[in-house]
């Protein structure tokens, strides 16, 4: 192992130089390396949320709600199809049980026709005829699974748009598993703002209000819904609102915060279809109230004074400026197809983030100094060479982290410090071996050679087992822990490299130049 081929020497030297080069950007402030030529690597390490400060949020998309809605729509569909074809259901009402619509018809001979009609409208259902003689129509497993997946995708997209519009830097938004979404937003000062943006479904619908307007008795007449008022000055009252949606939020083309007579309002605009529907409703119902419902609450119910055919209007109410801004943002981005719930949240304020970086930096530097001094004291000249290898080791760790775009967290820094302590282990193994061989009577060259040879298997065995633990840690951990596992794993690999290749190179150089009689170890 004393004879290191030219090829190996060059490769090792190259790796060291590249390592230092790739690690350099981290040491410099942004200004300095802007000036550097293009071919120089410019990536720095990503700081994790616990070092930058920021918000980590895990959301669950409640796809069940979307499925329920889908079944509800199916019921409406079937009802309409039967009505158009003059097939009466018996009893009058359909039943929704679980994810299936159940009903029977009063003319059994029309069964086949019903099958045809339903299937035409909704190819994704399975139609069962019940023994007692009725229909049980439900969506196939596949159709439900597809809907779930689609709901999650849509939610992801809309959330992305919403977050984008708030202007935060570099958010990470990704799907986790089948129904979860992970959000990581660095540098957020007010997590509440972000959470309130995510919390609202933002489903906007326009309905006519019943001529008797306010809910008198508990049960609304057929075809009408009982909806609470969200208006500040009418809290607690309820409206009877027509179930049929006259115009919906998906026809909205724009929504902006605005002012009318110095009061904050939301101005909106419909697309052609929306404008047409809006025009129709307002023309036919002058004098009645039109309820504007947002997420199940009436936010405004103005009287229709004249037909509105232009397709635009304003929503007035007791809004604050912030509310108009937020609501416009949500309307522009689109309604969430299903609500989301918060599973996990971790927020680190910028103060703590900065402190953690400082603490990490001081701890690493002191740790480094201690280890370096110790090595020199115990192993003398060889210790010094091990220290050089240690510096290169650290540079390599940073280089790899920068290139991979990996994230450095506070436990990650701890991992680097731990690696510093353990990195010298490989060198210690080798040096102790060399010592032993020297005491056993070998010449310097032969002792070094034997030392490396014998120690190699031990180094590989012991490091590999630590690596196993580290890899499992990566698989199990999330966020900060993953950061620790990453730096530890990289550290183990680089320290093996530097101990076996770099220190050896240095020792061999020294050996050839000074040709000692005895080893200073």
């Amino acid at each position, binding site marked *: 192992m004393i004879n290191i081929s030219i090829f190996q020497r060059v490769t090792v030297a190259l790796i060291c130089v590249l390592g230092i080069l790739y690690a350099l950007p981290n040491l410099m402030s942004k200004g300095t390396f802007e000036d550097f030529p293009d071919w120089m690597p410019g990536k720095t390490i990503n700081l994790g949320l616990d070092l930058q400060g920021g918000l980590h949020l895990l959301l669950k998309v409640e796809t069940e709600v979307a499925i329920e809605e889908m079944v509800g729509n199916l019921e409406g569909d079937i009802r309409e199809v039967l009505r158009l074809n003059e097939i009466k259901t018996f009893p009058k009402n359909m039943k929704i049980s679980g994810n299936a619509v159940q009903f029977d018809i009063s003319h059994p001979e029309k069964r086949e026709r019903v099958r045809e009609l339903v299937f035409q409208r909704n190819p994704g259902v399975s139609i069962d005829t019940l023994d007692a003689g009725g229909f049980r129509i439900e969506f196939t497993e596949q159709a439900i699974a597809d809907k779930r997946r689609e709901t999650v995708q849509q939610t992801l997209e809309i959330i992305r748009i919403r977050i984008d519009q708030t202007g935060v830097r570099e958010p990470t938004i990704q799907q986790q598993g089948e129904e979860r979404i992970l959000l990581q937003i660095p540098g957020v000062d007010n997590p509440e703002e972000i959470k309130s943006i995510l919390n609202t479904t933002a489903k906007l619908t326009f309905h006519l209000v019943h001529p008797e307007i306010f809910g008198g008795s508990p049960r609304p007449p057929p075809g009408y819904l009982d909806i609470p008022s969200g208006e500040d000055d009418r809290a607690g009252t309820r409206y009877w609102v027509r179930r049929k949606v006259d115009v919906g939020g998906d026809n909205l083309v724009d929504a902006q915060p605005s002012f009318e007579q110095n009061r904050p309002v939301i101005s909106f605009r419909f697309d052609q279809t929306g404008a047409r529907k809006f025009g129709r409703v307002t023309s036919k119902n002058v004098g009645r109230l039109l309820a504007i419902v947002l997420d199940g609450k009436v936010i405004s119910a103005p009287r229709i004074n004249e037909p509105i055919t232009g397709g635009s209007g304003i929503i007035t109410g007791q809004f604050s400026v912030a509310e108009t801004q937020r609501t416009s943002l949500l309307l522009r981005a689109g309604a969430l197809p299903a609500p989301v719930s918060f599973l996990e949240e*971790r927020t680190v304020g910028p103060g703590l983030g900065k402190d953690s970086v400082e603490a990490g930096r001081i701890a690493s530097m002191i740790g480094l100094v201690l280890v370096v001094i110790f090595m020199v004291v115990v192993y003398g000249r060889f210790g010094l060479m091990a220290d050089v290898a240690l510096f290169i080791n650290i540079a390599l760790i940073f280089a790899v982290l920068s290139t991979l775009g990996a994230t450095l967290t506070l436990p990650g820094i701890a991992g680097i410090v731990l690696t510093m302590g353990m990195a010298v282990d490989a060198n210690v*193994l080798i040096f102790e071996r060399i010592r032993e061989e020297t005491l056993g009577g070998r010449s310097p060259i032969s002792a070094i050679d034997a030392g490396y040879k014998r120690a190699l298997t031990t180094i590989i065995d012991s490091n590999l087992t630590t690596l196993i633990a580290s890899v499992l840690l990566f698989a*199990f951990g999330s966020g900060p822990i993953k950061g620790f596992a990453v730096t530890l794993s990289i550290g183990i690999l680089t320290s093996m490299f530097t101990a076996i290749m770099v220190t050896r190179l240095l020792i061999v150089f020294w050996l050839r130049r000074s040709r000692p009689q005895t080893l200073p170890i």
Partner: protein
Amino acid sequence: MRKIALVLSICLVAASAVLFAGRGLNLGIDFLGGVLLEVKTSGPADMSSMRSKIGGLGLGDVSLQEFGSKDTVLIRVQRQEGGDDAQKIAVDRIKEVLAGSVAEYRRTEFVGPTVGAELKEAAIWAVLAAVGAILLYIWFRFEWQFGVGAVIALTHDVLSTIGLFALLQLEFNVATVAAILTIAGYSINDTVVVYDRVRENLRRYKSTPLIELFNRSINETLSRTVMTSVTTLLALLALFIFGGEVIRGFTIALIWGVFVGTYSSVALAVPLLVYLKIDRRALTDDEEEAEQEAGA
């Protein structure tokens, strides 16, 4: 010598078990679910007033403790009934009620019951998987008796670390599990080095009685073991003193791990081999056959 170490180890594990069962672990919100707030107050914290304010909200178990300095308080509230969204509501209410006294919210964490349960499960699996993988690896590289010895030493280390946490009532959270896995790796690292030497000596000194061989192996690797432990401890010491409050528990676990891992490699892993009846021929025969084939 062997017996003393064995007795000591058994006591350690027994004590850990007792502490674990009796006092229990101070499980963090990572596993229980719940809310954690690290707040910095303007001026030294008035803990009792904060405690009564939050207590008045009727949120259940609330614990407040000083965290590193007089003006930093760690507030922990137990998991709220009502699933995931309830935790968020609790945070809002606490912030509301503390409005005047808090200068800065350094850190807010809440973990819903779903994620809490998942993390707990993942933690247990990770530790079991690590121990299993390590056992397999050692079995593969050495003989099965070595694997058993290594795993017993490893389990001893993990259990005593859990005992330490039960004793000191340090917060046992995800970072702690990370520390335990790291300790497992470090301890095995040590153990493998000694085992490697044992294997080498078994091949070299075929006629030496086992016990003497084991002792010799330990002595030969002792200086390396001590050196590495010292360097690692130096680095960890720097982390402990300067690394800040957030990772302190983590660092303490690692420091303990270095001590106990070194101890177990020397005083447990090898002596156990005596009881496990190594078949030295099995270990040496392969080597001899290989040498003969290479030579011929």
